[in-house]
């Protein structure tokens, strides 16, 4: 996670996004900091409205700068993307940082051949002829596992299945050998057997091209299987951030506990699901103090007023934003798995 030198690709510091609306200011993302290195898959987890997608749109420069207030720094190899003029940003976006979205049907133009759309992406940044661009498109489609790529490149998107469309989107993202691939819920619209194929493809691509991947998802299972580090978001803030192994073996934040405990398991029938009471707050007026305190069963005196910083509670732990003392965390953390699994185990 703290890979020094030129392995470091992205360093986000204090990213804050505000949307002024007629109802008030939506505090979509508040003070988010993280980094990404080559070979790393960062899983960004959170429920709807937690700010996980908006942070990535901000990194990609895809938010309208006139209508959005963005603060903080997004350093891509030392250059701040947030202050870069649009014409320079264009050389990075789509070339150095590429993105794969949730719904592959909405992202492909229905009236153009799949190959032509990928060839267009080739020509957007490279000054090559149409034939060369088409050849590159076919090569990439073949690379992401489309059978008979040469003839399938001439198909229209509706002739592709959901999984193949997502493969085509990944091919398009890989056109310029990007160093960062941002995948926003890449498998949410897909069936579970196809999801397994796509996750495997993303992993292969990461290894082969030695790139960094940001994987945004609501599915903790997907994160557990693919990510090397994990950032848990709630109400626009980072609740917990650390190596994936630690987050799943010893989660530290009560919100992460809540997420894990409310998840049914395919491995066993649980004695009980332990839901998080209530529902996520409105980002027009997020709660003071810790944003999770109204739903947190461990809240105590400082929680409603003081906002906890994202710091490691003890040197050997990873950072979390929670007031709960470390000893209490260890005790409660050990207790919770017993409650959940119970006699069914």
């Amino acid at each position, binding site marked *: 996670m703290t890979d020094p030198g030129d392995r470091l690709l992205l360093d986000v510091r204090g990213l804050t996004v505000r949307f002024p609306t007629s109802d008030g200011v939506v505090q979509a993302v508040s003070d988010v900091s993280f980094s990404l290195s080559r070979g790393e898959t960062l899983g960004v987890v959170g*429920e*709807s409205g937690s700010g996980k997608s908006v942070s990535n749109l901000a990194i990609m420069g895809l938010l309208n700068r006139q209508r959005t207030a963005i603060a903080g720094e997004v350093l891509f190899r030392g250059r701040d993307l947030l202050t870069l003029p649009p014409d320079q940003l264009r050389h990075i976006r789509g070339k150095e940082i590429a993105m794969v979205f949730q719904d592959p049907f909405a992202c492909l133009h229905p009236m153009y051949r799949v190959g032509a759309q990928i060839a267009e992406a080739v020509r957007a940044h490279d000054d090559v002829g149409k034939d060369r661009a088409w050849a590159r498109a076919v090569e990439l489609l073949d690379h992401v*596992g489309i059978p008979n790529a040469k003839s399938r490149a001439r198909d229209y998107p509706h002739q592709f*299945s*959901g*999984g*193949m469309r997502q493969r085509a989107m990944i091919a398009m993202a890989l056109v310029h050998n990007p160093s960062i691939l941002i995948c926003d819920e890449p498998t949410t619209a897909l*069936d*579970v*057997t*196809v*999801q*397994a*194929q796509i*996750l*495997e493809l993303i992993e292969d691509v990461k290894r082969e091209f030695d790139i960094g991947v940001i994987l945004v998802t*609501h*599915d*903790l*299972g*997907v*994160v*557990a*299987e*693919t990510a090397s580090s994990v950032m848990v978001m709630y109400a626009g803030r980072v609740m917990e951030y650390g190596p994936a*192994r630690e987050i*799943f*073996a010893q989660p530290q934040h009560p919100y992460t506990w*809540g*997420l*894990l*405990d*409310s*998840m*049914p*398991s*395919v*491995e*066993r*029938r*649980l004695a*009980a*699901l*332990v*839901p*998080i*009471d209530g*529902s*996520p707050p409105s980002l027009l007026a997020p709660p003071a103090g810790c944003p999770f305190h109204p739903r947190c069963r461990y809240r105590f005196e400082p929680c409603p007023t003081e906002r906890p910083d994202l710091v490691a509670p003890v040197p050997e732990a990873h950072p979390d934003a929670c007031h709960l003392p470390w000893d209490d965390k260890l005790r409660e953390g050990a207790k919770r798995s017993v409650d959940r699994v119970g006699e069914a185990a």
Partner: protein
Amino acid sequence: MNANGNLVELDHLTKRFQVKQGVFARGKAEVHAVEDVSLTVRRGETLGIVGESGCGKSTTARLMLRLLDATAGKVRFDGRDITTLSQRQLRPLRREMQMIFQDPYSSLNPRKTVGQIVGAPFVIHGQKKGKVRVQELLETVGLSPEHYNRYPHEFSGGQRQRIGVARALALNPKLIVCDEPVSALDVSIQAQILNLLRTLQKDFDLTYVFISHDLSVIRQIADRIAVMYLGRVVELGDSESIYEHPKHPYTAALLSAVPRASTGGRERIVLSGDVPSPVAPPPACVFHPRCPRFHKGHCDVEAPELRELAPRQAAACHYPLERWPMTDEEIRQAEGAERADRPHLEGTVHEA
């Protein structure tokens, strides 16, 4: 009331939809949505129907409730054949079978108040039940009686799904078909609704048919499950037996494809390719083009029948899995068999 313990019996149920194909839609084709499905739902149990999109799980549920008419086969509800009943004859039965839908946004009329939505079943069935009864229902599902005069847009997704549950409960049904009731909800809210459904089942002696593509959700809620693929039931039986020892290679592949939040490596069968079109399903065993245990000359010639392979567990497969997880030896064999038969495919079975 019939003597046996089955509330619903489906007998060789088939549904085909006519579709137009080709230039100017002159060609005709049939979508084989549900093919020869026989299963029973016992009183008081939860039958989970699981499968990928297009496998026919929702169509099966709609046939069960006579929201669709079957092409062939029979539906018996509470001992009575309802396959050919007229809409008028069906009406009293409708009280006993209700449905909860996936999308809590589009399944509630935005112009009606919660009181009108939950009270609608009383109006439709000519029952004079007042505001008090509706408010009782709201409390049963964890909403507040003060919500009576509010509109759906004032509620979150989870609360809306509770409104849908209250509406389904209104007429004291025997059977509730839940069609992906938690798929649109965040995981913390999903657990609230699953727990609510479980409590209600105990309190009101409900029988559930629970449809989901999410195998973890099904494991948590179902007593028995039916695994569907391309309109057919490929495995049927006690939930725990199937999850612990799947017999059909498709069930095994489906289970192994689910990402898990627990740590540690595991065996994974990655299926190649996509689900074939239900307009032209493969001959014989519909799973054979993707199956790691495919045997040429058998699986693509003769369709396997659903047969009992373990106590209370049946699968439709000529070469069911002997044990799960498979041993390394068996995986190598499956890989070898597959390469010999279909050299054009990439490896489908490997250790993850």
